[in-house]
């Protein structure tokens, strides 16, 4: 083994510039395809904003293009590294098959655990937990309203159980044996029901359910029982299966596995089968996830419609309420209280009908629920107070605003002051004839236009709210609910504020930036790059944002807001949008972020984003790790830079020979013919950027540098890899190891704005992780202020800037050069969190300005 290693090292040492250039050519292709994948993903994500019209052909082409680019990346990596990462091909193949399944409209069950806690799910988890539970999780996780604690038995668990029960095969046989090839719904229910009840749960699944129940029981104490609820894939989403599948209420802990099977069986009950047939839905791909949430000790419960379905133009919510559990309201079997509540804060009660309520449902001591008499004192009194109704209305309208459609919400009240939400789904309301386009035109004509036609719509929709001017330094609690955020820059810092905003407007920003993506994800209308929003929209002014016509009106245009709510269906619910969203859920997430993580392996690549991330990292690691090109520096394409301070940097020209001076082995910055490399080096050598004085280090930092886990401890042992810049006239790839941390810059700068980009990666340091992370945080803030989109994980940072004009990118490269020098030993000094902001301030307002050429 050792001799093999020695041979290998020797082989690598004798690698010529010619061979390296060949590999670098492939590395450039890898980068091109890498960037193409990122661009395709960003472009597709932009399409989800709703401002584009696309069809299935677009999605098919997208899937094909991504597959093509990712496969090239895999091939390039193996060429560069001499087939050291063949496992990446298998990972790539698995992703390709999943995409194929998705495109063929087969439900692709994600590779999730059998159990997911409800706190961990949101709408992105819909393929694992079903739409109903995904929506409930979203209400808790993103909107921070109360939902019952619990867990979901996922679609992966269903797959496991259905394989044990051989459900697919039995469905095929059932249809094949029927003389007409179409058994009646009752026959299907009876046959598959028997199969399900007679099949034992696979042991691993049963154990997982028992474990999850036990966790809940420990938290909630004795006496807890569960609502075991259906959450079929598609339920409450593309198909409305409302009430077709079963829920089992007040299940004792030991009854949960049996209740799970009961709910799964209801996937094939006669009502659901008939419904599927009328909608032309095949039976085979039906998949059921099951929610298991703690029963709420409800003093009263009910249903809320955010609009009156019979008179949607009235500005009211309809609330029905009953003592105890809400089953009576859902069944409609007894009299209940009915309130009309104003949609306008402070949500006064417009009318109330208090019923004589004789019976109510309660949790039975032996499990299950039973009907009992309502105590005399409660029979004729309102179930809920006006204050509670106002709080309920306010929360429901937030859910409506978030969901972009009127909602039908099940709620409960327990001992707490805030309502608990049990379910929320779209409320179907027929648009009234009088809400025509002509009315809209008349309505908007009465409102002054504050801004129109400036910038780009990045997330389509209509919203109303009060303007709040922000700069990204605000905390979430500073932002009033439903504010229209107006900012100069599309800083990623604003992202965390979006959840409370009704709309986002910026002066500067790109449709493919992080903030735009977040507004699309949260379905918050946004317009970016307006140039002047912060000048014309004053704080406190009430505005209606029409991010369809790219127009902002002064005041509240009720007709536009009602029009938005009453549209028959949101474009986001169309088959094409759902398919594109699902595709991006498979292809876009980045799971492999940290190369130091032991999960950073080819086998763990689950998306094309992972594939390109892994390939990029490994290609760089191979190319910069251990080349000894000393004898080659005399070649026409290779020089050592003379930077006039102690930094060794070798530069390799892969472009025209004229980009380097002829003769000699050394080169001055001014002699470099490559604009991106020259700009970056000008930053590094700017006055004061490179202090060669040693930094004072306290004992703790010193010990940490000796014993602590450095980011680069996984780097090849022995001599540090050489600092290397590979360049052409427009292209630069720089890898710089400065003691204990690593900088990488990859940039392309030309006159074609759309081709231009800078990628900057930074990681490591010589002190402990807290100080290293502070430095990385400081760098991330500086870069964000300079328009970069930044991902930060501890002391590992990736920043991207794309599609800016050439002079701007060259200046940003110079700035990065300055930043590399400025922050070189800064982690040692970062003793407190406050030094992050001080560092940002010092660099941007003092150091960087002084180092700029006059």
């Amino acid at each position: 083994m050792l001799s093999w290693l020695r041979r290998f090292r020797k082989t690598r040492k004798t690698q010529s510039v010619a061979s390296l250039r060949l590999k670098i050519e492939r590395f450039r292709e890898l980068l091109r395809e890498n960037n193409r994948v990122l661009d395709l993903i960003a472009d597709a994500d932009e399409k989800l904003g709703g401002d584009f019209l696309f069809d299935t052909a677009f999605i098919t082409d997208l899937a094909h293009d991504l597959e093509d680019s990712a496969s090239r990346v895999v091939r390039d990596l193996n060429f560069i590294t001499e087939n050291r990462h063949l496992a990446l091909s298998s990972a790539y193949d698995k992703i390709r098959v999943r995409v194929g399944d998705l495109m063929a409209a087969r439900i692709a069950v994600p590779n999730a655990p059998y159990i997911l806690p409800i706190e961990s799910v949101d709408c992105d988890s819909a393929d694992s937990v079903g739409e109903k539970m995904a929506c409930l999780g979203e209400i808790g996780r993103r909107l921070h309203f109360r939902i019952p604690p619990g867990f979901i038995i996922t679609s992966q668990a269903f797959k496991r159980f259905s394989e044990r029960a051989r459900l697919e095969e039995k469905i095929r046989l059932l249809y094949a044996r029927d003389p007409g090839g179409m058994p009646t719904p009752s026959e299907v229910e009876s046959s598959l029901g028997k199969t399900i009840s007679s099949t034992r749960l696979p042991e691993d699944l049963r154990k997982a359910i028992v474990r999850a129940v036990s966790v809940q029981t420990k938290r909630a104490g004795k006496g807890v029982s569960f609502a075991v609820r259906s959450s079929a894939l598609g339920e409450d989403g593309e198909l409305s299966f409302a009430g077709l599948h079963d829920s089992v209420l007040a299940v004792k802990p030991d009854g949960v596995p049996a209740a799970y099977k009961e709910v799964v069986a209801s996937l094939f009950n006669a009502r659901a089968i008939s419904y599927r047939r009328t909608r032309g839905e095949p039976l085979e791909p039906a998949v059921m996830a099951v929610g298991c949430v703690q029963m709420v000790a409800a003093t009263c419960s009910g249903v809320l419609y955010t609009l009156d379905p019979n008179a949607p133009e009235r500005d009211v919510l309809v609330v029905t309420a009953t003592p105890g559990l809400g089953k009576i309201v859902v069944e409609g079997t007894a009299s209940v209280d009915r309130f009309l509540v104003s949609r306008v804060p402070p949500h006064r009660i417009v009318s109330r009908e208090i019923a004589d309520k004789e019976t109510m449902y309660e949790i039975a001591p032996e499990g299950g629920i039973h009907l009992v008499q309502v105590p005399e004192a409660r029979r004729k009194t309102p179930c809920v107070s006006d204050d509670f109704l106002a709080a309920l209305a306010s929360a429901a309208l937030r859910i409506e605003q978030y969901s972009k459609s009127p909602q039908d919400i099940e709620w409960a009240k327990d001992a707490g002051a805030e309502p608990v939400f049990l379910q929320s789904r779209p409320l179907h309301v027929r648009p009234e004839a009088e809400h025509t386009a002509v009315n809209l035109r008349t309505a908007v004509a009465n409102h002054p236009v504050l801004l129109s036609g400036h910038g780009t719509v990045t997330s389509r929709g209509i919203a109303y709210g009060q303007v709040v001017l922000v700069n990204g330094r605000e905390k979430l609690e500073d932002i009033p609910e439903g504010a229209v955020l107006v900012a100069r820059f599309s800083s990623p810092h604003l992202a965390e504020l979006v959840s409370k905003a009704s709309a986002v407007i910026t002066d500067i920003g790109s449709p493919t930036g992080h903030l735009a993506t977040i507004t699309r994800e949260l379905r918050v209308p946004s317009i970016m790059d307006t140039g002047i929003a912060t000048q014309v929209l004053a704080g406190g002014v009430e505005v209606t944002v029409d991010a369809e016509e790219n127009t902002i009106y002064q005041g509240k245009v009720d007709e536009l807001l009602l029009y938005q709510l009453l549209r028959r269906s949101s474009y986001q619910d169309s088959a094409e949008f759902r398919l594109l969203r699902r595709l991006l859920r498979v292809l876009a997430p980045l799971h492999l972020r940290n190369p130091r993580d032991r999960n950073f392996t080819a086998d763990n690549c689950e998306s094309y984003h992972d594939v390109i991330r892994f390939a990029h990292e490994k290609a760089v690691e191979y190319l910069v790790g251990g080349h000894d090109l000393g004898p080659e520096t005399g070649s026409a394409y290779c020089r050592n830079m003379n930077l006039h301070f102690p930094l060794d940097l070798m530069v390799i020209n892969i472009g025209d020979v004229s980009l380097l001076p002829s003769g000699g082995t050394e080169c001055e910055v001014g002699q470099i013919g490559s604009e991106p490399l020259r700009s970056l080096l000008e930053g590094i050598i700017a006055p004061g950027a490179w202090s060669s004085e040693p930094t004072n280090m306290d004992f703790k930092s010193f010990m940490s540098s000796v014993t602590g886990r450095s980011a680069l401890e996984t780097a090849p042992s022995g001599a540090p890899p050489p600092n290397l810049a590979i360049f052409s006239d427009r292209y630069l790839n720089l890898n710089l190891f400065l003691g204990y941390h690593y900088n990488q810059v990859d940039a392309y700068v030309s006159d074609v704005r759309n081709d231009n980009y800078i990628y900057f990666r930074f990681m490591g340091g010589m002190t402990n992780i807290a100080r290293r992370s502070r430095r990385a945080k400081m760098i991330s803030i500086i870069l964000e202020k300079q328009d970069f989109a930044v991902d930060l994980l501890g002391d590992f940072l990736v920043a991207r800037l794309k599609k800016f004009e050439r002079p701007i990118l060259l200046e940003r490269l110079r700035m990065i050069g300055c930043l590399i020098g400025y922050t070189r030993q800064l982690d040692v000094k970062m003793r407190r969190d406050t030094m992050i902001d001080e560092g940002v301030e010092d660099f941007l307002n003092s150091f960087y300005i002084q180092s700029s050429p006059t």
Partner: protein
Amino acid sequence: MAEPLRICVVDDEKIVCERLKPILEKGGFSVETYIESALALKRLSETTFDILITDIKMGQPDGIELLRYAKVHSPSIRVIIITGFATAETAREAMKSGAADFIAKPFRLSQLTDLVMQLAQQIRESASSG
């Protein structure tokens, strides 16, 4: 108030019809949509539209045939061709056959509504001058 202008949208991709109808209605137009071009052809023979927006690649008849028929039946009709195949040839063929303009999928909705608004302006101007 003047009668709203009438627009006929034809595309065998349902999403095109579903998305264009409310957007054009919001712009003040009266809109009919067809995913079957044969039904659209029948409708074009029965009534008059001011603007036809049609996909080019459909079953029988295709967009070019629909365009030619519409121009014969109602010479003043303005036609916008939509296609996923943005080739110069198809554009040229559509324009030669009398299309007012040409737009390739995927496109920004505002591109299409801007185009429709321009045509609507022309139609109103020619009506007032005629």
